[in-house]
């Protein structure tokens, strides 16, 4: 019998993503892929998949599903609760674990409580044809994942695995919650705005001394106009030097680059961000801090702090080691913790 996982409610902009599409920036194709790669890897390892398997990324509100046929195992990573309904009995538990579904089960993923991204990995992965080498959905151009579409009510997910994995489920005993930003005023009052580390440039010489001072001393707020393309910030206006243009000859961009158009409001490029751009980039967020910024909800506050390339590379190495150590803590779930 075919396993049929059906989407009942799609949540907010849930889409299939992997670790990104590489090698096509020359055609203007952004890398896309998950905003929070470490969480996607955790979900995959919990589900028994290779770390780079395609997953469902959901933002703010999780999707709900029912399993029409067969059985399957999936895993959820993110700061949210999950409700499972079986034969009319409903159980609620934290994410950061795998779960076996039987035919007739209903699964509801709740709101993301800190940050905005959560991930669902299905054991065995999705049965999809990669586009330009990747399963990442690029919504703007309509390709990748489910033919370039987000999850919709009624979508039947194309699955590779035909049945649930045997044996214990797995869980992550110490979820990486402290690294998640929160938009709650209370948390900002207590801890202050989150610090985002940057490397200066490539076009910091296009800005006035005052703009550079304001950039590092001011507080910036993530606005509602932020999406997978970029995080638009509100805060001190950054003025371009009067003897320089507020535009450059359009030049290469990468996720993390902070473009400042003529209005002086910085935009941090994210996974779906354009491959080139014509506004000067005052600084670039370091690789390890980009996921933190990418999953911030509107209203979150940040300050920028400069680091050297050496420090950024050391943080990259340390973060990689921390994830390896964290993944190694994933353990079988005691039978007593099973919801049914």
């Amino acid at each position, binding site marked *: 019998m075919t396993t049929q996982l059906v989407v009942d409610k799609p949540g907010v902009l849930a889409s299939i993503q992997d670790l990104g599409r*590489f*090698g*096509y*920036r*020359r*055609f*203007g*194709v952004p890398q896309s892929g998950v905003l929070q790669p470490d969480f996607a890897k955790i979900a995959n390892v919990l589900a028994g998949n290779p770390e780079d398997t395609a997953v469902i990324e959901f933002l703010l509100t999780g999707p709900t599903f029912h399993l029409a046929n067969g059985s399957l195992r999936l895993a959820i990573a993110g700061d949210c609760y999950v409700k499972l309904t079986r034969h009319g009995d409903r159980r609620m538990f934290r994410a950061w674990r795998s779960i076996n579904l039987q035919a007739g089960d209903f699964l509801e993923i709740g709101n993301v409580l800190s940050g905005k991204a959560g991930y669902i990995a299905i054991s065995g992965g999705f049965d999809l044809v990669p*586009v*330009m080498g990747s399963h990442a959905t*690029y919504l*703007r*151009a309509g*390709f*990748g994942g489910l033919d*370039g579409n987000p999850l919709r009510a009624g979508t039947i997910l194309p699955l590779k695995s035909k049945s649930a994995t045997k044996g214990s489920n797995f869980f992550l005993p110490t979820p990486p919650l402290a690294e998640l930003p929160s938009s709650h005023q209370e948390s900002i009052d207590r801890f202050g705005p989150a610090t985002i580390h*940057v*490397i200066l*440039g*490539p*076009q910091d010489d296009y800005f006035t001394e005052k703009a550079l001072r304001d950039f590092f001393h001011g507080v910036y707020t993530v606005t509602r*106009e932020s999406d997978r*393309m970029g995080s638009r910030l509100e805060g001190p206006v950054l003025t371009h030097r009067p003897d320089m243009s*507020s*535009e450059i*000859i*359009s*030049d*290469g*961009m*990468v996720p*993390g*680059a902070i473009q400042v*158009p*003529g*209005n002086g409001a910085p935009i941090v490029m994210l996974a779906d961000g*354009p*491959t*080139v*751009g*014509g*506004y000067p*980039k005052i600084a*670039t*967020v*370091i*690789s390890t801090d980009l996921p933190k910024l990418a999953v911030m909800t509107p209203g979150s506050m940040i300050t920028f702090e400069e680091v050297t*390339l050496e420090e*950024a*590379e050391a943080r*990259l*190495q340390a973060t*990689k080691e921390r994830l390896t150590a964290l993944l190694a803590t994933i353990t079988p779930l005691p039978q007593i913790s099973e919801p049914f």
Partner: protein
Amino acid sequence: MRVRFLNMGDSALILELGDHIDHSLTSRVVALDQTLRSEQAKGHLPGFIEAVPTYRSLTVIFNPLILPRAILKTRLLVLLEEIDNARDQTVRCWLLPVCYSSEYGPDLETIAAAKGLTAEEVICLHSNHSYTVYMIGFLPGFPYMGNLDPALHMPRRSQPRIRVPVGSVAIAGAQTAIYPWESPGGWQLLGRCPLPLFNAHRSQPTLLAQGDRVQFESISSDHFRFLVDAVQDGSLDMTRFQTGEVTA
């Protein structure tokens, strides 16, 4: 200007060959990019991920934990010495239809007023001109073309539009382009082209390539709608818009 390196975060490096728009700079960028890709294909550059060739620079994306920045820089300078910047390329020529009107080009009148021209003169200056595709980027298949007639040079809008319609033909500075997708954008809009510029399922996904020559043909809104329908039902043969090849 001397060749220089700029850091874009910890995992990208820009090699800038100049600070202006110039065919000879772009062909050096293209040659360096090709050399770098063949190095990658031979497995000579572990940690190199991909490069983005632009008008006058090459952005190199790499994993600094595998490929140290200093080694990458040295390698790029050696490759730059080696490239032959005089080689001839065969490029394709295109005649692309554009419906210029204030409905499809909401900035047409603004451009005319700012430049002391009539809308008809703006259309004439924009369409009666051969452009070079300097790079593809920003969005899938977005062709950056130049050089625009100096009488039409306009800055980008200081407040970019949240939504620019698909097919919009736009100008900014010395550049002109067609938006292949609906997207945010800061360029000034003067018309619309009905042709699809990108197909994710082709091995060469973009209609235009770096180096191609493009001219525009002003069409009526009836003809525009006819072509939009032909694109939709798949009956449009794109090669009819290609007018030939030249050796550049």
